[in-house]
């Protein structure tokens, strides 16, 4: 619909006018004494604004969606429906202003509708994304055997039509790098959180906490550069070559370490909030029994905060699994199944990018595989999130 702007203007105009008219009408109905009204003038005004705009805006969205799906053209008819809805809402709510009208509860109903509408949009978007991925993945499996996709250990796409598109080496790279990143970030982040919440004084805390959180604001491409130019060569020169483990600066270890640095603030900041939420009375109870500070932390505070900490770790894990930039620059683009952490490997996300860049033909298995890869990744992160929720729910009622 090209004529969206005038429609929106009309709705806004009606709503604004409705606001003032409703207010003065309510005053008039009240005969100057607003105590005779069941609802206050501003509640009538709110009701008018909402009943004018909510159905009309909802109609605009639904119609746009319908037109997109059917590929139809906008016509004057739809504009007419929208304006009609707005005017109907405007008129009925204004005419309805009486002394005993409960505009306050009516407005409540519009607000509920608005909230439900907003959450529906969020859910529908997710569903839409999943469906489009499912659809393309289905196309992919029409052209490429799913057993080869899930169980083949080689990844070597080419454009001659005999590509090997096994996900295993990519999945291995993803999990290996994520594992190293978490092995690095979780202890450091957790210890930093414990220091900040239990030991640091208020002044130290006010400096250190934002300083750690700065790490979360660095763009991942900058981390990637750091991996490429500093961490990678250093690891090669000081560890890999002396130990005879390889000559590559791009390696699982490089990407894992740098990704770990990126994840520290995720773990520490969330864990810090969670540890702070453990009631002081719990610590007092332990200290009062003659436990030391670190015994108290290990045996009371951390167990009480555990569900939240696990939630934080799983969130960091989802970040690690979805990360792309650091891997491209840090770990390289070679799909490989190997245990040597100083070897270059690659991940699912990197391969999604490389399959879709350059000259692509959206019908070949070499590009459609990106959707299958994306869907697999999505299922993994979804599983992690569900698991995190489960853990958090299960242990939540443990303290009040």
């Amino acid at each position, binding site marked *: 619909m090209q004529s969206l702007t005038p429609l929106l203007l009309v709705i806004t105009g009606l709503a604004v006018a409705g606001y003032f008219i409703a207010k003065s009408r309510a005053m008039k109905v009240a005969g100057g004494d607003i105590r005779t009204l069941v609802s206050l003038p501003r509640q009538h005004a709110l009701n008018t604004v909402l009943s004018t705009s909510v159905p009309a805006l909802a109609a605009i969205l639904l119609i746009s969606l319908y037109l997109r799906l059917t590929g139809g053209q906008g016509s004057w008819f739809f504009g007419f429906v929208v304006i009609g809805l707005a005017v109907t809402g405007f008129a009925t709510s204004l005419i309805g202003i009486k002394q005993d009208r409960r505009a306050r509860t009516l407005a409540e109903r519009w607000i509920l509708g608005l909230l439900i509408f907003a959450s529906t949009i969020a859910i529908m978007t997710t569903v839409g994304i999943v469906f489009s991925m499912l659809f393309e993945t289905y196309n992919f499996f029409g052209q490429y055997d799913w057993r080869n996709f899930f169980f083949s250990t080689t990844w070597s796409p080419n454009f001659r039509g005999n590509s090997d598109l096994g996900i295993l080496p990519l999945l291995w790279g993803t999990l290996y790098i994520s594992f190293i990143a978490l092995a690095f970030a979780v202890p450091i982040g957790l210890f930093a959180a414990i220091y900040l919440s239990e030991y640091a*004084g208020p002044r130290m805390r006010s400096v250190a906490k934002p300083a750690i959180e700065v790490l979360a604001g660095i763009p991942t491409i900058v981390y990637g550069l750091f991996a490429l130019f500093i961490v990678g060569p250093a690891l090669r020169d000081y560890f890999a070559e002396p130990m005879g483990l390889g000559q590559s600066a791009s390696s699982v270890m490089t990407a894992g370490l740098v990704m770990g640095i990126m994840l520290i603030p995720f773990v520490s900041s969330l864990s810090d909030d969670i540890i702070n939420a453990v009631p002081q009375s719990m610590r*007092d*109870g332990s*200290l*009062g*029994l*003659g436990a030391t500070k670190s015994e108290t932390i290990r045996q*009371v505070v951390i167990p009480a905060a555990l569900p939240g900490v696990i939630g934080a770790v799983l969130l960091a894990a989802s970040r690690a699994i979805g990360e792309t930039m650091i891997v491209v620059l840090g770990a390289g683009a070679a799909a490989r199944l190997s245990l040597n952490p100083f070897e270059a490997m690659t991940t699912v996300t990197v391969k999604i990018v490389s399959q879709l860049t350059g000259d692509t033909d959206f019908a070949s298995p070499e590009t459609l595989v990106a959707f299958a890869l994306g869907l697999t990744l999505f299922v993994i992160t979804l599983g992690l999130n569900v698991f995190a929720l489960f853990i958090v729910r299960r242990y939540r009622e443990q*303290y009040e």
Partner: protein
Amino acid sequence: MQDNKITARNVQVYYGDNQAIKDVNVDIADKTVTAFIGPSGCGKSTFLRCLNRMNDTIDICRVEGDIRIDGEDIYDPKVDPVQLRAKVGMVFQKPNPFPKSIYDNVAYGPKIHGLARNKAELDEIVEKSLRKAALWNEAKDRLAAPGTGLSGGQQQRLCIARAIATSPEVLLMDEPCSALDPIATAQVEELIDELRQSFSVVIVTHSMQQAARVSQKTAFFHLGNLVEYDETDKIFTNPEDPRTESYISGRIG
């Protein structure tokens, strides 16, 4: 019979610039029950927390004066507050069970201080403590259930069991019965009476009847001052200070 277990001299406690305890002097006898009474906010909990240095955990809190247990200055830099708290147990005003099983709540102190040589001994300590705290019958079939799943009154008795499991020499109880029904209260009072055989007990309470029933000595606090400290009978029948008189007859508070 009366050796002094705790002697406090010229104790002042400040929260920031706010003085919560003003020049308190008190001698607490061994193997007796001492009750602290007084209107809300008068500093009973604050003073109680000085006796096991729990006030150390509050940044803005400052304690001055001289407090000795068995003649040893507990605020001496050589004294380890951790050791002190093992000796001076505490039951807090609000029940604060750990998010662990009932068994682990009670076993917490004994495990930390190595009081049991093996599992059987630990089981015994746990059972004995729960029995003393009048919780054994309700808890014996659910020792593995979380302590936080108990009712408020049961939680408070769990905290009492937890405190006595470390066999302290002094037990500080801050309104231990405020969440308990009359039966559990009677059981706890019985326990306090029994504990008196071996330890000294200091109990904060808002119930005059309870103070009269369980204690031998009573201290009346008002606005951070220790107004009167004497034999319980004397305080309740023939108080010296007019403020004590009006508090126990219900006019201040």
